[in-house]
């Protein structure tokens, strides 16, 4: 009996000793710092803080936005704290999401003036908004909800009904882009809950459900975090941007612009970055040839968010079916890059043509705005949301 007690005590002691070092061990850093190698421990790079209030029009130097000859950028709406994704209602309401501000807005055009109403607040990073058949769909971190008939009730919004809520609750990369595909299904991302880690099987993907919340399935895997996608107007294939991992250096890895012509492809994360760089830790034993390479390397740390294929008729004919990529801009890079809207021309036979459409939010090392999503107006002009200034710009072609 005594012997048994002693054995138990020994076991307890061994367990205790095994656990003791954990209590005094270095803990995981904040998510933005995770994956930083010891060689970069002295880096002063850190994410750009999100201002708590939108800028007043007088503080928004819209004349600094540079667009191609014949185009003109103007301030279309302001006072929209943390303005992110834009989606149109059937009756001409522009619904605008936010992230840390926790709001969803409705912007109504009133004879040349834009009226901004907050239709939901206190939500959990409600980045995703999509509209179909009179109903607004909102994606927060762990659920998708809907407001039926919202456009008739902007001053007294209906309750949010749950569409789907069996989603991870992780906040890092937990905010979602949300869009209806050509198949009528709701597509959204489930990001990796970290900068770099072996994500659970449930994370690092683009997924979809039916509009009634049934039929969940994974569409594409190995995606660190995609918060922007669209479908090609002709081929109907899914195109998406992905933010690359941080702390591998100023010039690697590149962010990506990808196409997923079929379900089930793996795009490399966390094993392989930008299609040709194995991760120093998770790449061991793998080859980049196992994974789908990027359609386009969009540049290191540019933070590609919104994707929008142009289908309007205002811009010159060569703009038809071009993809606009809104790049919110870097933090994990000594010299800032991004802070611009790029355009991609596909189907030219060779590599996609990749060029600047709008820039100027970065002046020297100073950031005054961060273009994050684009949306087309009925007249074919292009809206650009800026979540840093809390504003929406309109780019028109008027040669």
């Amino acid at each position, binding site marked *: 009996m005594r012997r048994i007690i002693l054995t138990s005590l020994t076991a307890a002691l061994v367990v205790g000793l095994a656990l003791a070092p954990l209590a005094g061990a270095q803990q995981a850093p904040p998510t933005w710092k995770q994956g930083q190698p010891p060689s970069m421990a002295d880096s002063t790079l850190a994410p750009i803080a999100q201002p708590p209030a939108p800028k007043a029009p007088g503080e928004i130097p819209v004349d600094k936005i540079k667009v191609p000859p014949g185009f003109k950028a103007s301030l279309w709406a302001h006072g929209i704290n943390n303005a992110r994704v834009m989606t149109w209602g059937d009756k001409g309401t522009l619904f605008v999401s936010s992230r840390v501000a926790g709001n969803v807005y409705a912007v109504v055009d009133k004879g040349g*003036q*834009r009226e901004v109403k907050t239709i939901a607040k206190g939500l959990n990073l409600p980045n995703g908004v999509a509209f179909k058949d009179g109903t607004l769909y909102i994606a927060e971190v762990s659920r998708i909800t809907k407001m039926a008939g919202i456009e008739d009730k902007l001053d007294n919004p209906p309750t949010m*009904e749950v569409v789907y809520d069996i989603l991870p609750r992780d906040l890092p990369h937990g905010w979602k882009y949300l869009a209806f595909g050509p198949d009528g299904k709701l597509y959204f991302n489930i990001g990796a809950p970290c900068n770099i880690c072996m994500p659970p099987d449930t994370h690092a993907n683009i997924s979809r459900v039916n509009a009634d919340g049934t039929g969940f399935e994974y569409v594409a895997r190995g995606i660190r975090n995609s918060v922007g996608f669209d479908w090609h107007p002709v081929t109907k294939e899914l195109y998406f941007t992905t933010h690359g991992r941080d702390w591998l250096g100023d010039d690697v890895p590149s962010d990506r612009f990808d196409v997923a012509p079929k379900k089930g492809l793996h795009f490399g994360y966390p094993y392989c970055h930008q299609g040709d760089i194995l991760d120093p830790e998770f790449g061991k034993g793998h080859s980049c040839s196992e994974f789908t390479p990027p359609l386009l390397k969009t540049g290191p740390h540019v933070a590609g968010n919104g994707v929008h294929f142009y289908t309007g008729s205002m811009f010159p004919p060569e703009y038809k079916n071009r993809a606009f990529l809104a790049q919110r801009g870097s933090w994990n890079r000594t010299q800032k890059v991004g802070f611009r809207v790029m355009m991609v021309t596909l189907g030219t036979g060779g590599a996609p043509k990749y060029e600047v459409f709008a820039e100027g939010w970065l002046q020297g090392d100073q950031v005054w705005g961060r273009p994050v999503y684009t949306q087309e107006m009925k007249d074919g002009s292009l809206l650009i949301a800026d979540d840093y200034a809390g504003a929406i710009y309109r780019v028109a072609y008027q040669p």
Partner: protein
Amino acid sequence: MNPPGTRKSWVGTFAGVLGFAVTLMAGIPDAAPAADPEAGRRKAEACGACHGTDGNSTLPGTPSLAGQPVFFTHWQLIKFRDGRRKDPQMSPFAQNLSDTDMADLAAYYQAKRPRPRPAATDPARVAAGKRLAELHHCTSCHRPGLIGQEQAARLAGQDYDYLLRLLRGFKAKTASDLDGTMTIAAQPLGDEEIVSLVHYIASLAAEP
């Protein structure tokens, strides 16, 4: 897979959150004017009873606001107003604040000098807490000396009881967190470690 009927109980929860609509007119040039600390001083008169006229509270459990970064104070007020952060005393105050009020108040408090809050700290706890602060990367966001920056709070000069309540709240996942960083950071902490950390923070000079 998810029959909508099973979600009914959920809907009522949000009715309160949505019973409003804020309207801002675009085109009004002073929709978000530059913050005015002097206006903030006047607006802060109602706050002084608890937070101190200069933002240095003397009530145990009530935070000092002096020297808090503008972004921190403004974001917290937004969260009190929209219900993400809840407090029986603060929540009603925040309901009537405009965006301009919040900006003015935040500017006023940032300009005030923080004074130390009295706390009986135990040297052994302080030493353990100092080590824990290093292991848990507190200065990554709160800066050396824990003086705060941007949306990350100034901790130096803060009240013991308030710090303890907040850190325990983050551990319990009940404290409001702008982006999850603090909730994640608090998860590995045991309660003894939380107490030691708070002893250490409460021992810091209000101004390094």
